[in-house]
């Protein structure tokens, strides 16, 4: 294995998130995300998994009242440095939410929504990019004849895959996913899980999920976040089967119900 793969693509150092009143949402989280693998973040609700995810691409900045301290390094660079452009950061670290978000417009317009505006798509590669993104999201065959139809006519499962395609069109290095299949039926869930397995060959995925089975199926690396004294703290992070079969921390064991 070359050094390239050993160096984590994303890492956090003593990352803490506090409200104005002093309540901690996350405390001293030090996490390393290995590249081209699926890293799962598991833990009970309220532990701050979504908050952690939003710190990784600085989406946390949108909430004006939270204070973030500590470091998040992307390819070794501090993401919160003054010289960093958060919008460009977010193109390279894409995100998919639990509820599929559909912008007004056609399927094609949705997929290329950011790509056209950010310059990733131009007149020459437009159609190519559209097809490629939809194929990678596992949606191409279902919508190839419906590209001009309104995106809102798609089913919920299709809309979520559309959201993934839209993120892919920006050619990100990392894709963050916040419980992407929680709102979906089993068939769509299966389809997206397949997509994730395909994607990790070329990209890094960080997956927040409360489906332990899903985590076991998909993840190479797992981090467990639990609440300690009101704030989310990282209990442990290791290879998937290590965490699931022989966890070190008591809190992890408690959360997993110790099934192996």
């Amino acid at each position, binding site marked *: 294995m070359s050094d390239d793969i050993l160096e984590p693509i994303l890492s956090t150092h003593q990352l803490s998130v506090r409200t104005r009143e002093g309540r901690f949402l996350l405390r001293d989280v030090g996490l390393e995300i290995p590249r081209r693998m699926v890293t799962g973040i598991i833990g009970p609700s309220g532990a701050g998994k979504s908050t952690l995810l939003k710190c990784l*691409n600085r*989406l946390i900045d*949108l909430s*004006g*009242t939270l204070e973030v301290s500590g470091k998040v390094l992307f390819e070794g660079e501090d993401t919160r440095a003054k010289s960093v452009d958060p*919008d*460009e*950061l*977010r*193109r*390279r670290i*894409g*995100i998919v*939410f639990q*509820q599929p*978000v559909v*912008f*007004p417009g056609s399927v094609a317009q949705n997929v290329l*929504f*950011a790509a056209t*505006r*950010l310059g990733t798509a131009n007149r020459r590669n437009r159609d190519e990019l559209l097809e490629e993104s939809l194929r990678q999201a596992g949606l191409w065959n279902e919508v190839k004849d419906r590209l001009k139809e309104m995106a809102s006519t798609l089913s919920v499962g299709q809309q979520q895959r559309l*959201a993934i395609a*839209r*993120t892919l069109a*920006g050619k990100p290095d990392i894709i963050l996913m916040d419980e992407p299949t929680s709102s979906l039926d089993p068939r769509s869930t299966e389809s997206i899980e397949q997509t994730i397995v395909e994607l990790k060959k070329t990209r890094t995925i960080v997956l927040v999920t409360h489906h332990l089975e899903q985590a076991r199926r998909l993840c190479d690396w797992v981090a467990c976040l639990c609440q300690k004294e009101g704030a989310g703290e990282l209990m442990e992070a290791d290879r998937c089967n290590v965490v699931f079969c022989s966890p070190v921390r008591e809190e992890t064991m408690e959360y997993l119900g110790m099934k192996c």
Partner: protein
Amino acid sequence: MRRLTDRIFTLLCGLGAFIALGIILTVLGLVVFRGAPAISLRFFTEQVRSVGAEGGIFYQLVGTLILIATAAVIAVPLAAGVGIYHQLYVHTPRSRRAMDAVLHALNGIPSIVFGLVGLAFFVQMLGMKKSWLAGGILLAVMILPTVTVAFIERMRAIPKVTIEAAYGLGLRRPQIALSILFPQAVSGLVTGTLLGLARAAGETAPIMFTAVIFAGATMPKGVVDSPVLALPYHIFVLAQDSFDPSMTQKMWGSAVVLLMLVMGLSLIALPLRLKIHEEARRV
């Protein structure tokens, strides 16, 4: 005993509502009833003759339209800018509340204060004499809060996840403003403008010292020293000298026309407002 109290309660409230309804219908009824006979096509298209006793109100209507059109042209971009700033660039709830306070303060300023300040500023200090532009500016400032708040409210109705997703894709703020906020909130801007103009059309106080005269003006020539006529001011002057019966019908006619203009503007906004209400509920 409790039942009795409840009955009396319901009765009293119904009575109050009945009185309110009665007042509403009386007011509207009186105006429409008295004014309708005066309306004819000639009323709209002719000029005033014999100092208001004869003829129509053509130039009063024109003047009012010029004033509110000017107000719209000035207020809409300002409202759009303030609204975008409020939603996209202000991050703490406290700053947003401060902006809201400024808008509410502006909205609360009595219209006569605008008129007086306008007189002292535009006419005296700047030496503009009476001008339609001064009137338009004052009206624009007066309706700015109405337009802005309607715009902001519509933007707030856009689901947060949609905005987050746009940021998450890496879109920059101007792009988010142009590709998501504006297109989806334009209906709020339009509604606010229509409601603001409905109010501006009926205002007398801001324009009576700065932009309008009672008689003698037709179309404005230029910007400085070019007053216009206006419906509300016309009615106001006539009302002060109301003992001449031949004037009365003209007054009522003018009042009905003004009312139609104001109501018309509000009513156009109605289907839009209902649609916004529906969309907000669906989300």
